[in-house]
């Protein structure tokens, strides 16, 4: 994969090999991450490993730091203490080339954030064209494929304002995928949608996971987590309280806080 970034060829080769499926080295690893906004501590020491191809769901009450955690993983929010490694890069490193990091990690937001002055197709094409400077024909073809993958063929020339919430969210997913990331982050992407459109987005994410994409989702959709996740994490008060495979997690949670939260939402 052409990546004109700062990391030396040797280092990226190592990270590719190391993060191969089933290998021991996780593609995303957090160690003792602390984050505060001013004096208010939001994340109080989180450690987590995600292996390549895994689907991880993070659930928990509002204010438990889930969204902040996601934003720290791709460097949108800096952390005060601890280490986050993504595909061999240390996010907390002040000398990190953020753009190189963000090529490995795609993120989809709750509020879609599509560029309203560009059509759906242009939204998907913009980053590879302007940032990666790939040839136009290639980019356009891949963009059309991605839009077909999220089942929006026929909507390429529509503007975001003309699309429904669910459709916009799927374009946002296609847009992030256009950069060919190693890891996809989803920040409560269905929270702003109405129930019918939630399903179409979840189906898209499920297909993505089935294709082998490493996904980290912050979500309230317990049914989805149970079905698709390889591992579920429960956060409360800035810490990971409990984690485990969904089967064991949902039927037999050990910690009382987890059990209380699950009884409220299920």
């Amino acid at each position, binding site marked *: 994969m052409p990546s004109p970034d700062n990391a030396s060829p040797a280092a990226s080769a190592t990270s590719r090999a190391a993060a191969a499926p089933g290998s021991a080295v996780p593609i995303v690893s957090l160690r003792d991450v602390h984050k505060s906004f001013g004096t208010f501590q939001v994340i109080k020491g989180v450690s987590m490993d995600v292996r390549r191809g895994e689907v991880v769901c993070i659930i928990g009450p509002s204010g438990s730091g889930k969204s902040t955690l996601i934003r720290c993983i*791709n460097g949108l929010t800096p952390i005060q203490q601890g280490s986050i490694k993504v595909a061999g890069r240390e996010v907390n490193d002040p000398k990190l080339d953020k753009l190189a990091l963000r090529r490995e990690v795609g993120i989809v937001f709750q509020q879609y*954030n599509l*560029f309203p*002055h560009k059509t759906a197709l242009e939204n998907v094409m913009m*980053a590879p064209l*302007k940032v990666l400077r790939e040839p136009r024909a290639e980019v356009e073809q891949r963009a059309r494929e991605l839009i077909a993958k999220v089942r929006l063929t026929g909507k390429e020339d529509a*503007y975001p304002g003309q699309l429904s919430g669910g459709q916009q969210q799927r374009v*946002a997913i296609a847009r992030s995928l256009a950069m060919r990331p190693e890891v996809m982050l989803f920040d409560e992407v269905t929270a702003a949608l109405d129930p019918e459109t939630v399903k179409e987005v979840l189906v898209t994410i499920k297909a993505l996971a089935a294709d082998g994409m490493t996904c980290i989702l912050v979500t309230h959709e317990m049914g989805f987590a149970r079905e698709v996740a390889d591992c579920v994490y429960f956060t409360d008060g800035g810490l990971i309280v409990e984690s485990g495979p969904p089967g064991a997690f949902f039927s037999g949670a050990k910690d009382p806080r987890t059990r209380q939260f699950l009884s409220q939402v299920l």
Partner: protein
Amino acid sequence: MLDLLAPFFKDLYARTGLNFIVFYDPYEFGRLLNGAAISAQLIVWSLLLSLVIGIVGAWVQSSQSAVLRGVVNAYIQAFRNTPPMIQLLFFYFGLGAFTPTVDMGGYSQPLISSFTWAVLSLGIFGGAFNVEIFRAGLQAVPHAMLEAAESLCFSRWQTYRYVTLPLAFRISLPALTNNLISLAKTSSLAYVISVPEMTYVLSQVWSDNINVPEMMLLLFAFYLAAVWIIGAMLHWLERRLALPGYGQ
């Protein structure tokens, strides 16, 4: 074109006494066209200058230096809270006294003409309002949009160029339209520094021919037409650039 208009207006004068001499007398017609041309140029140039100043000023206002921001703020306050007519007089007479003159062989002509001073003064006056408008437009681009661009690996300059500026411009356009139309109307003040634009020319015609009501009507009609044309162009631009789906 004079040949087409002349018979009708001569006839009108003969029958009703309404003297639209500018439409049947070649000399007066020439004066009218000159006045219209100067007015049009004055409006176009001062509008453009005000836009450029607005953009540069808004950019400076987002800089880190408190000194630069203070200077731009002082400029805005000075030119928004003082009468535009006095600003014109100040530029032409006050600053004009210091500009060098060019020897034209027998008489000297100032290097900067009254027309140029009018463009400068009106452009600076209009620019003071445009800076505020552009700044508000830049601020109104949702922060989340910039985050999305950042997550897609756009550099700061790329985000500015592909996301912030296009959106800020579209958001600012309605307020900008109001301001530019207002500036076009204010351009009639150039009369006080003897710029030979429409007001000045027609006032000379009516003092020569004592047909004040008719010429005033024409003056009114000219400005209403100018305002209407500018408004129409800017509204067309607004419609063309409107974000589809967010219509109101």
